[in-house]
């Protein structure tokens, strides 16, 4: 292979092509600054920052909005946990809900239901999916596949502007007479049909959110299939791209039935139809005057037809993030990459035929229950394959315990616990005792909270330098990790014990009214609530760290010594463009891909890692010269 030409720039040796690149970039930046705030592009502020069509900025918009909603959902949960830990106690902070919901600072049961329904809705639909897919997906996928932007940039912008108003409508529902939605995030009829006005707002908000998801998923799929770089075959994708690809198919095909169901429920509430209302319904002693003939189970079927694939939407991008961090942090390729890819595709496919395991207790017959139990057991296999591959990827690795790596490593056992506790729930017989108990809450929170959200945190620490040119403070990152890790287990682990003891979910007093549950509730709830408050406190260093560095970056204070590829990564978002990436078009020239995504410590190569888009492994620089941090070469670790 040919030696790359080196030139001397001042006191440094630099590769000639790197030097030329840096010079071009410097000239471009100078021209941008010369031309005023908008450089040579003269985009008015509103087109550049509000209605942007640049996937990177849209990703950041999604990110900020989603993080705000996550914080809001978390605060709702804190209020709930105050009530659960010390039922009926007056809290000053509860007064923020107003006199109608918390007279004298004591939370009313109806208000607890509102908090519960909106906590779930906000976390899932306004928080995690927009963060995982809208923020991380939007920002990284075009960069990782070597594309200048998404296939449909304007559609991307419209997707965000369906999400944000949808979120606002959801928030506005708090102001509706009678309060917001309070029939669970699952909105089961008949309760949801006879509920107060807030439920209608919830349904309208959902229609906006579903539209946003649909448009986004079309964009992702077309971008990945059509705009991937020359030489980037499917099996050379970074695993993150595979995860986003399958996730987009789930969003595309599974959301419409929920949209249909939402329309039907809207008709029931607003037009007086009886899609979900059976005949002869009596509410508070008064018989309803509707036509009847409807079926509440119809809603459940349609809802869970989406909501089960939805949980894989919640986990797959997280697995993608963890995979990227682990490959990078162990300095070796992922173990079983091919198996992981096929497992992901199989998982996506199977997720469409397991939905009724959420309905084991609706009186379904044994044959149907057995069918769904079987498919549910089968779907655990690809999850195990993916998790095992990630664990095995650690073996023999040269692990760098950076902050993102801590979160990624913690994800593995946490998702393991979440997944394993799903097994008794998937078995119809065991589910008889565990359905609608705290066991379920513990199970899904383990997968989503120390699972997905930890992966999201890891992703933020990992890709923050890419988006801003600054690293988040490492010390406070570790503080954030350790306190969160301890507290989050303290909140959710006792839930398994509570559930096994028979404490039902959605009880405003945490089980204190039931003799069989009182003791365990009294023993565990206060402890869990204290841990929840600890978890809140643990987020403070993160919030400060995040905003401090984000604002500093926005003001132009880049990290001088950081370079474009501080983690020494092989994937194109790091190695083929600057940090932050070039404002429009991402790359100087569209990259061409010559190798797989994780060529770390390739046997026989002198270079410690080889980026995907490099045709030949870079030669190490001669002794006596120092290397630019951004060059894709470091001396191989011996």
């Amino acid at each position, binding site marked *: 292979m040919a030696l790359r030409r080196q030139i001397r720039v001042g006191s440094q040796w630099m590769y000639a092509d790197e030097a*030329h690149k840096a010079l071009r970039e410097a000239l471009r930046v100078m021209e941008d600054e010369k031309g005023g705030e908008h450089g040579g592009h003269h985009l008015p502020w509103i087109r550049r920052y509000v209605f942007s069509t640049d996937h990177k900025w849209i990703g950041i918009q999604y990110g900020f909005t989603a993080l705000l909603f996550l914080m809001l959902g978390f605060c709702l949960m804190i209020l709930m946990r105050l009530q659960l830990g010390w039922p009926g106690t007056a809290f000053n902070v509860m007064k923020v809900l107003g006199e109608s919901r918390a007279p004298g600072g004591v939370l009313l049961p109806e208000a607890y239901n509102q908090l519960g329904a909106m906590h779930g809705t906000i976390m899932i639909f306004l928080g995690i999916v927009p963060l995982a897919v809208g923020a991380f997906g939007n920002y990284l996928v075009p960069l990782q596949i070597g594309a200048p932007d998404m296939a449909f940039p304007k559609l991307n912008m419209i997707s965000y502007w369906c999400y944000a108003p949808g979120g606002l409508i959801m928030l506005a529902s708090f102001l509706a007479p009678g309060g917001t939605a309070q029939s669970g995030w699952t909105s089961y009829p008949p309760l949801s049909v006879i509920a107060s006005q807030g439920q209608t707002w919830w349904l309208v908000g959902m229609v906006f959110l579903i539209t946003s998801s649909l448009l986004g998923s079309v964009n992702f799929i077309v971008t990945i299939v059509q705009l991937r770089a020359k030489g980037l075959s499917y099996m050379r994708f970074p695993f993150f791209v595979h995860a986003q690809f399958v996730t987009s*198919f789930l969003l595309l095909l599974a959301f419409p039935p929920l949209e249909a169901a939402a329309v039907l429920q809207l008709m029931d509430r607003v037009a007086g139809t009886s899609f979900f209302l059976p005949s002869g319904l009596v509410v508070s002693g008064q018989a309803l005057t509707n036509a009847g003939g409807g079926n509440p189970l119809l809603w459940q079927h349609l809802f869970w037809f989406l909501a089960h694939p939805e949980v894989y939407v919640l986990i797959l991008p997280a697995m993608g993030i963890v995979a990227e961090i682990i490959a990078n942090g162990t300095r070796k390729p992922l173990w079983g990459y091919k198996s992981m890819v096929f497992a992901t595709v199989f998982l996506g496919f199977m997720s469409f035929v397991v939905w009724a395991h959420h309905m084991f207790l609706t*009186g379904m*017959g044994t044959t149907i229950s057995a069918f769904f139990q079987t498919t549910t057991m089968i779907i655990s296999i690809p999850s195990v394959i993916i998790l095992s591959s990630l664990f095995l990827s650690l073996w023999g690795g040269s692990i760098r315990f950076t902050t993102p790596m801590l979160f990624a490593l913690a994800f593995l056992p946490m998702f393991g616990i979440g997944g394993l506790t799903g097994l008794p729930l998937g078995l119809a017989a065991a589910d008889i005792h565990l359905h609608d108990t705290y066991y379920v809450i513990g199970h899904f929170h383990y997968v989503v909270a120390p699972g997905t959200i930890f992966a999201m945190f890891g992703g933020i620490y990992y890709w923050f330098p890419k988006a801003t040119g600054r690293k988040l403070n490492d010390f406070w990152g570790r503080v954030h990790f350790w306190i969160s890790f301890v507290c989050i287990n303290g909140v959710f682990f006792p839930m398994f014990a509570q559930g096994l003891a028979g404490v039902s979910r959605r009880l405003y007093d945490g089980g204190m009214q039931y003799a069989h549950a009182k003791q365990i509730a009294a023993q565990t709830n206060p402890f869990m609530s204290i841990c929840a408050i600890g978890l809140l406190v643990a987020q403070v260093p993160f919030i400060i760290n995040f905003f401090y560095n984000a604002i500093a970056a926005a003001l132009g204070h880049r990290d001088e010594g950081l370079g474009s590829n501080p983690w020494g990564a092989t994937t194109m978002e790091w190695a083929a463009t600057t940090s932050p990436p070039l404002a429009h078009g991402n790359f100087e*020239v*569209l*990259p061409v891909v010559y190798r797989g995504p994780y060529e770390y410590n390739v046997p026989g190569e002198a270079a410690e890692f080889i980026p995907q888009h490099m045709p030949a492994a870079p030669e190490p620089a001669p002794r006596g010269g120092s290397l630019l941090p951004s060059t894709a070469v470091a001396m191989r670790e011996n």
Partner: protein
Amino acid sequence: MTDPAAAVEPGVDVHEHAGIGDPNAHHHTPEQIRSEMRVYITVFIGLAVLTAVTVGACYGLKLPVHTAIIVALIIASIKGFLVAGFFMHLLSEKKVIYGVLILTVIFFIFLMSLPISHHLSPFGS
């Protein structure tokens, strides 16, 4: 400095000649396009006839419910096939589109199994 990527400008003209109405070829002769238009008219006549047959059978003859369902759905499927195959040129589309649609059909079947699964499991069975 030569940049291997600079020379890349993949796929401008694709001269794949497929059958009737290959929607992705860009250089059909006017003759080919006109012959496609003749096909469209033929398909239209077929659709009109099939509509008349469905209405005649179910409404005119007032077939019993179960027979009506079968007859109407079979005829509707044929009409659907004609619209999808010729007007939407699915018969000469590329693999990637077929892939998406086959996946959709499979999940559509799952969706339609929903009422079946509901009725196969009456309470207490």
